[in-house]
């Protein structure tokens, strides 16, 4: 059995403008055959925000660069590069760039793994 390493150059992937900042998928079925997991890079400018939807998935939000806030249960928490939060299937969060700043966010989403029957 041979294994190959696939290199994905995230800098060359096209960015898509959305109502919640610019985004580009860096981990999906088309890029590497990932059937469940979806990885996205997202850039938010000052005044922009992104709400990670509560879609029954496990999600990870990691702040790769910049300065902003993450809102949980209606309360804002200031965050800087290196901050992150795991969201369970029923949880949601909104990340917002600070005034005059921008943020680069890595967003990973995957469905719950079914448990083996006892």
């Amino acid at each position, binding site marked *: 059995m041979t294994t190959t390493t696939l290199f994905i150059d995230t800098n060359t992937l096209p960015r898509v403008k959305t109502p919640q900042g610019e985004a580009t998928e860096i981990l999906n079925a088309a890029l590497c055959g990932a059937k469940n997991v979806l990885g996205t890079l997202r850039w938010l400018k000052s005044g922009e925000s992104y709400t990670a939807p509560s879609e029954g998935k496990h999600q990870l939000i990691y702040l790769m660069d910049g300065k902003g806030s993450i809102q949980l*249960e*209606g*309360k804002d*928490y200031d*965050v800087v590069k290196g*901050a*992150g939060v795991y969201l*369970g299937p*029923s*949880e949601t969060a909104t990340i917002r760039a600070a005034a005059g700043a921008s943020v680069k966010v890595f967003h990973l989403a995957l469905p719950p793994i079914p448990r083996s029957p006892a």
Partner: protein
Amino acid sequence: MITSMLKTAAFLLCAFLAGLSLAGCSRQRSTQRDYNMGEKVLVGPLTYSINDATWKSELGQGFQVRTPNQRFLLVNLSVTNGGGQDASIPLLQLEGANGTTFQELTNGDGVDQYLGILRNIAPAETLQGRVLFDAPLTSYRLRLVDGGDPAFPKYAWVQIPLNLNADAPLLNTVPGTATPGSESK
């Protein structure tokens, strides 16, 4: 005679009102400021210390996994009874910023060093362990109770903060290993 009776009535009325006022005060002997984790918090005869608080998305292992409705919050605390008689530690409560409250869970399955629900504590004795909550991920205030007369409880509150940022690097943790330019003052 009438004047004397009026004076007596006025005196009795004042005494009655003063008594009501004092009784009202005695029901609210709670601290007003919030304490921080790690501080010693004196509530009646009990001294609490909240050592740490940890969020978990599940408890247990293998087929014994236990999942929360929201998120598990484990609070590690120690309680010392400084009074002269036995006391019991009631169930604790989390208070959210928007007024929501979450009662401590009474099922400790999957919790290491679970404090239990029957928490009698003798004079000079210290109990240490973890209590469990199921609540949405955010910051809270933990309401502590004195364990005395349930009709007249005394409370104190400890902040349970939520920090989403990566831990700050540790500096000067070992004497003599300070890096140049990072001398503590």
